[in-house]
């Protein structure tokens, strides 16, 4: 197989941002997530929970609530603006100022015609949803306190608003507040603090369910304005509520990190006296749960511990199958690390700056598994802060280490690095067509830069000493609207492969600057791809863990790929829950493909037999512990190594040493904000 010298990199201080709000669209099976730094992420729940799109954040866009209106996504934030997003170009389409102070909540009626926002000044503002924009319609009766949460009745005639110390029910047509439901304050010390009704839900039988900062989930009769039942579920705040589509199940998220489920069932056999009964408690988070979504089969939760947890409900899915497994999304499904293979440099992408590091050096030879003495430690060469308020969308470093480029939603910057990457100077006079870039890629000889643009097209610019010239735009076939999220150039400079979120993979001929071929569409989105340097085979890995190898010269799947599809990938390979984010090759051995996901990296040797489905898929360490005859029996072409956790990037340098960028989850958790203090016996 080969021995590698491994650079174990742990100096990438990647810190994800807390999850602030989420909303699920049943029609499109997409989950939209808003983070504390203003970034938005779209997850495709029908494609193995793949993170399809990431919209970069913005300073001062403090998103508090999200809302799907059909296929359109709206957000409202504490900056007082309602923003609609263009999901094909990954940027905000427009913003509308609500003029009510910070906006705490946004909600659309079931017909999809009116958008209600709750503001700091106590008004509920109604906006009409028109074809290309939204328009202010009217204010409902102004109240004395701030409106923290809103919920429409499914008929669209009533709105329940959660405020400080009370809940108000408005008539949506007249705008008058009809009922006032007073919420009890907490006991003891919290009696002097106002209780905040963090979340509210209005059901079709006029039941209102509210959750507040005193730890209660209360069930009210919306017609009479009376309290039916109180459930005290925690000593801290209950921050989020979500009701299922059929209104039979409800989940509440607390500051402790627990998610409590209530179900509308009857305690006896006869179905007449149904009541909301507390059923399950999930403790999947260590910090506050601030956002919840109840899909048909699962409960999705997210909060201050930055992880997205999808918990399928066992009464909706079959037990002990792949669908019933809990999924945790901790790292983004795209690469934040760019490795310059020839120069031994690493580029780390943060939302507000970029860091360029040179890898350390080590002499000497050690035995397998041992650590080598470091002769010269790694050093940070450049820290480049972004200009403007938009966060960095994508970045790239050329393999020779001489060019650095990054793009935000509004600007594009290219830098030339000289003197061994010590000095940096900005390249001005960039071609106008370079905005906006969703993905960047340098060619292997650093002479060209590829930037993906709108409508799945790619802009090609040539790089000279200190200037760059526009060469052309590679256009996909007509009708491709989705953004390109994967770009890969071949080593010989002849081919460029692109993949967009519509699962379309196009290959362009760079000599002629034209479309060469389109790979047959596979139902799952590509998560990583690369072109082999010698054989010019395109290897594509998809979100459902399938691997395909396509020959660009012959325009057909290779023989190995057909063999793999015929036998099928091993079930343990398919059951992995994090996608492959990087594919690379070994120059010394053309039969090797190196892939990695968050928990393992694997060298696929195409010359060795494929793993048998009935055998266990052992990783290298487990194989070594087996006795000799078993080892031969179980050896296969998928050499998995789990020595390094948790992986952000695995790359192979030109001098045949492996670079492994790790970010242990423990390091992230130890820097999170304060969790609640739970008193445990004997501590």
């Amino acid at each position: 197989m080969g021995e590698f010298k491994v650079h174990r990199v742990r100096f990438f201080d990647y810190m994800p941002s807390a999850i602030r709000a989420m909303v699920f669209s049943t029609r499109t099976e997409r989950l939209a997530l808003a983070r504390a730094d203003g970034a938005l992420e779209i997850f495709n729940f029908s494609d193995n929970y793949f993170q399809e799109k990431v919209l970069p954040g913005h300073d001062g866009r403090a998103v508090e609530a999200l809302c799907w209106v059909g296929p359109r996504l709206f957000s409202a934030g504490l900056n007082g603006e309602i923003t609609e997003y263009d999901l094909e170009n990954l940027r905000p389409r427009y913003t509308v100022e609500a003029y009510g102070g910070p906006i705490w909540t946004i909600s659309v009626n079931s017909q999809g015609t009116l958008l209600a926002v709750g503001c700091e000044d106590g008004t509920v503002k109604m906006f009409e949803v028109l074809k290309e924009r939204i328009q202010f319609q009217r204010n409902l009766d102004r109240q004395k306190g701030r409106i923290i949460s809103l919920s429409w009745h499914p008929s669209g005639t009533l709105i329940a608003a959660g405020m400080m110390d009370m809940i108000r029910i408005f008539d949506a047509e007249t705008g008058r507040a009809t009922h006032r439901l007073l919420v009890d304050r907490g006991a003891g010390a919290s009696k002097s603090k106002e209780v905040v009704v963090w979340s509210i839900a209005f059901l079709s039988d006029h039941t209102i369910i509210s959750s507040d900062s005193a730890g209660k989930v209360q069930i009210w009769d919306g017609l009479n304005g009376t309290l039916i039942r109180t459930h005290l579920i925690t000593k801290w705040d209950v921050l989020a509520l979500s009701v299922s589509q059929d209104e039979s199940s409800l989940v509440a998220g607390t500051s402790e990190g627990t998610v409590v489920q209530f179900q509308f069932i009857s305690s006896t056999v006869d179905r007449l006296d149904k009541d909301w009964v507390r059923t399950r408690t999930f403790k999947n988070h260590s910090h506050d749960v601030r956002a919840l979504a109840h899909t048909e089969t699962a409960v999705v939760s997210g909060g201050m511990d930055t992880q997205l947890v999808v918990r399928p409900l066992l009464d909706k899915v079959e037990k002990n199958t792949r669908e019933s497994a809990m999924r945790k999304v901790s790292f983004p499904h795209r690469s934040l690390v760019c490795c310059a293979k020839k120069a031994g440099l690493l580029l780390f992408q943060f939302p507000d700056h970029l860091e360029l590091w040179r890898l350390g050096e080590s002499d000497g030879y050690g035995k397998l598994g041992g650590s080598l003495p470091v002769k010269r430690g790694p050093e940070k060469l450049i820290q480049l802060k972004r200009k403007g308020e938009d966060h960095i969308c994508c970045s790239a470093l050329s393999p020779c280490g001489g060019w650095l480029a990054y793009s935000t939603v509004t600007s594009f910057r290219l830098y030339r690095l000289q003197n061994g990457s010590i000095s940096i100077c900005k390249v001005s006079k960039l071609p106008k067509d370079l905005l906006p870039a969703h993905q960047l890629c340098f060619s292997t000889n650093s002479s060209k830069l590829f930037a993906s643009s709108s409508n799945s097209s790619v802009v090609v610019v040539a790089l000279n000493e200190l200037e760059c010239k526009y060469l052309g735009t590679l256009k996909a076939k007509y009708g491709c609207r989705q953004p390109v999220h994967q770009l890969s150039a071949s080593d010989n400079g002849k081919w460029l492969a692109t993949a967009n979120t519509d699962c379309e993979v196009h290959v362009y001929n760079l000599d002629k600057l034209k479309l060469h071929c389109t790979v047959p569409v596979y139902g799952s989105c590509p998560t990583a791809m690369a072109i082999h340097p010698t054989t010019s085979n395109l290897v594509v890995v998809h979100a459902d863990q399938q691997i395909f190898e396509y020959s660009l010269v012959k325009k057909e799947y290779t023989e190995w790929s057909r063999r793999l599809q015929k036998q099928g990938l091993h079930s343990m390979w398919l059951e992995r829950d994090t996608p492959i984010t990087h594919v690379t090759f070994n120059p010394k051995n053309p039969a090797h493909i190196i892939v990695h996901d968050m928990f393992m990296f694997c060298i696929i040797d195409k010359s060795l037999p494929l793993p048998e489905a009935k055998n266990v898929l052992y990783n290298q360490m487990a194989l070594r512990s087996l006795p000799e005859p078993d080892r031969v029996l179980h050896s296969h072409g998928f050499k998995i190594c789990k020595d390094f956790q948790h992986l952000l990037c695995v790359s192979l340098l030109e001098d045949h040493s492996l670079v492994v960028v790790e970010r242990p989850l423990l390091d992230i958790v130890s820097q999170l904000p304060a969790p609640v203090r739970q008193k445990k016996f004997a501590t």
Partner: protein
Amino acid sequence: MNTNNSRCIAAVVKARSLREHRPANGSAGMQGGGRVRSRSLSVTMRRSAMTLQNNMAKNQRGEAAPSSRMTGRERQMGGFSLLLESSDDEGPEEVTFEDSKADARRSMKRALDTARREKELLKEKRRKRQELFQEQKKRKLLSAEVLEEIDSTKQEQSHVKAAEEEAEPEEVEGRKRNWKQNAARNLKGNYTVTTVKQSTLASSQLKAAEDFLHSRMYGPGSRRTTSNEMLSLENKMGKNKSAAVQFVKKNWACQKKAKAEKLKKTWIHMQQIPSS
């Protein structure tokens, strides 16, 4: 509570004065003292105070002996007071209720007075320190102002002579003048002072809303702990028990460590020079 204490103090005072007035007694007196010391002081004093007062009241009313309802302890305490009485040939000292009340009030006033004086002393100290800091700040600002003036005078070399001559004597005085007046002088040219980023009403409202959210979640009364403590507790209670997550604080005294490194390097360098 305060009145109890004052009663205790009164009782202590009384007891002490009683003891002092009597000459050293025989074994009976010592026994009584020993018995008292074997119990907790506050209880004994309180009880003795109560019984003493009871006795005094009863003496005033003309009752002779303490009632039989007393508990054993009280009887012994009563015994204590009786002992005091019996150890001395004289009759018990008649201390009226008003006297002891006045005593109590006086001692309380004294205590309050000392507390107030201490507070005032602290306030004085704080005020003096604050003034010292202001003074230091002013001095610091002034030196920065002087540098600015030197810079500005360099730039103004190409200006009209009159302006230069004006600047010269003012520069000398600038050191003694108040920094506010210097700032006014600097605005003579075409200068405007603005903030780099205009803070709008929206951003201040955003900040206020974020502060509200932060105070509700992390403010006082939110009963929170640190991530480090939570992880350390998990290590302590988990299956494989291990040490706290941040057992050693690695980032303590960074500057001192850096200084030590530099010193070490220079020392090694110095060592190598004579040998080479």
